[in-house]
């Protein structure tokens, strides 16, 4: 029992990271209506920005994180500008958007491969390693390392800020409205292009933060975005597309499921479990845990 609980605790930090990626996916999907396949690349760029800032500029954790998020926001806006804006102007985004995203993602991923080299990199140690005892079960201490704990708290803070932004500010409220009906929102006088740009910036900042957090835990490499991006999408689907709380729950659940799988079944299937969950959710309850239904109209 204590082993299982320890596995669950171990999964929380990666779960928080997945939740951040998931929110980035779901906001863009809600507003623009396409699967933004480049999200994994923004995540990768965030991880690399963090690596360069901490390794070569010797920055400490917090400023490096904030700068990485800013870089991620700019990168996502540039990708939008370069890839999707021309299609939106032509009105072919719905048809050609996904393949453009595939192309953009390939372009960025392999450019990064050329620029940063394919060798995996490791972040320098950013904080003292310490095991924090959370609580005891019987005679066993349930522990969490300081870095895992900070990542979990960091992701939760970012999500709380985002939730406040969506519920308290005008732009945030407009985005929530836009994810339900972009066209009507345009008729109400909202500047939809501006909203889309803000959406991409937020999504990019979240993706970069996730990449940064992942870098503090594991090695980073230019093709890291492919798998993590998809896992984020799996979390978004599990939680329900369009719901921030859902993404959080989905992310944590998948992080935990991965750890339990690698602890109790086999490490080889650790990465497959999120895909299996995603397929099952789509088949059984396509709206996810907290999502709303998309109706197909004639």
């Amino acid at each position, binding site marked *: 029992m204590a082993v299982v609980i320890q596995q669950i605790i171990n999964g929380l930090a990666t779960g928080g990271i997945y939740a951040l990626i998931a929110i980035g996916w779901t906001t863009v*999907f809600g507003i623009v209506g*396409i*699967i933004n396949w480049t999200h994994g690349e923004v995540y990768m760029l965030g991880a690399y920005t963090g690596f360069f800032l901490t390794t070569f500029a010797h920055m400490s954790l917090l400023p490096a994180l904030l700068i990485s998020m800013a870089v991620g926001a700019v990168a996502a806006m540039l990708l939008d500008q*370069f*890839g999707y804006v*021309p*299609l939106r102007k*032509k009105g*072919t985004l719905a*048809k*050609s958007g*996904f*393949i*453009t995203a*595939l*192309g*953009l*993602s*390939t*372009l*960025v*991923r*392999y*450019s990064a*491969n*050329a620029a940063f*080299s394919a060798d995996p990199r490791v972040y320098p140690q950013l904080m003292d390693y310490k095991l924090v005892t959370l609580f005891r079960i019987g005679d066993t201490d349930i522990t969490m390392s300081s870095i895992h704990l900070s990542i979990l708290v960091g992701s939760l803070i970012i999500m709380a800020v985002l939730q406040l932004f969506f519920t308290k500010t005008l732009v945030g409220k407009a985005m929530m409205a836009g994810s339900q009906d972009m066209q009507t929102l345009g008729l109400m006088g909202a500047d939809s292009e501006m909203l889309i740009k803000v959406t991409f910036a937020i999504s990019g900042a979240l993706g970069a933060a996730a990449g940064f957090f992942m870098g503090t835990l594991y090695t980073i490499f230019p093709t890291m975005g*492919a798998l993590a991006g*998809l896992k984020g*999408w*799996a979390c978004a*689907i599990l939680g329900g597309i369009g719901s921030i709380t859902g993404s959080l729950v989905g992310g944590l659940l998948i992080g935990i499921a991965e750890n339990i799988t690698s602890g109790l079944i*086999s490490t*080889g*299937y650790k*990465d*497959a479990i999120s*895909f*299996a969950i*995603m*397929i099952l959710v*789509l*088949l059984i309850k*396509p709206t996810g845990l907290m999502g709303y239904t998309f109706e*197909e109209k*004639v």
Partner: protein
Amino acid sequence: MTKKKSEWFFGLSGKATFLISLVLVLVFCLLDQFVPGKTPVIPNFVKYIAVNGLIYAVASLGINFYSGYLGETSLGHAAFYGLGAYFTGYLTTAMGVNFWLTIPLGMLAAAAASVPVALAGRRVKGSFMVVITYAFCEILRYIVINTDELGGTAGIPGIQAPTILGVKITKIPFLPSNKDGYILILYAIVVFLSYFTWRFVHSREGYAVQAIRQDEIAAQAMGIDVRGYRLKYILISAVICSVAGSFYAVFANLADPTMLSATLSISIFTMLVVGGRRSIPGAILGGFIVVILPELLRGVQGILGLPFDPWYILYGLMLILIMRFRPEGIMGEKE
């Protein structure tokens, strides 16, 4: 109905295209038999590229049924390709089954694997099917990697070249190189598939599927069996991709997990997009493009001394530009 312009290469009729291509292929394969001299006129690596191009053309013609005529996006067709490759690899090496027998077995496996995908397609649509196909292929890859009998990440090496009437396909008399046998067989398959596809889409069923692609709800209201046709087209596309995989396994003498990778899935899908969805010559052309261009660029890389492979960077750029300026693909038709 007005007469449309030819659907084949250079405005030629189907028959003319077939005859010209047949002559070209025969010349390509047999030329060195009649030209004296030790060094072949057509270098071996050109024939290597030709075989790979033909294998990809088969896969591309396969996915054309799903992504072309049904109009769905799939990032999982490497699953069927890899199933074919692994069936051939495992059955020939571990159980000594004849290669020609493993093709229909691989096809059966791919058909069986396509059914759950089709069933999933009844519950979810569009963007969500993209991730379902992708996840389906990834899960298969993880299963293969974690199964020791299938060689794990190393795959199954040492797959033998098949024989025809006791003659190894790489050592057929009168054929100058060891790849001509593959070229002729694959050419025959591509011709057969082209004809099959053409007959299929110009039949009652083809028009029904066209209606489904354009407006599914309206098609259903007209009494078209939407579910049945979807299942049928996914099945056909899976089966054809599995044949391509089987041939790739014997040609490369290897079946490994990269044949189930997302990269390959994306290649299979995008080569059709580049060539032109719903265009038979476009699908074939797309298959050749994704084989020829990387080889050319590898040459460029060698000449310039680049430390990285420029192919994927340019490929990404090519996809973006095609989507912006010619979204129907090189040979596709506007809808």
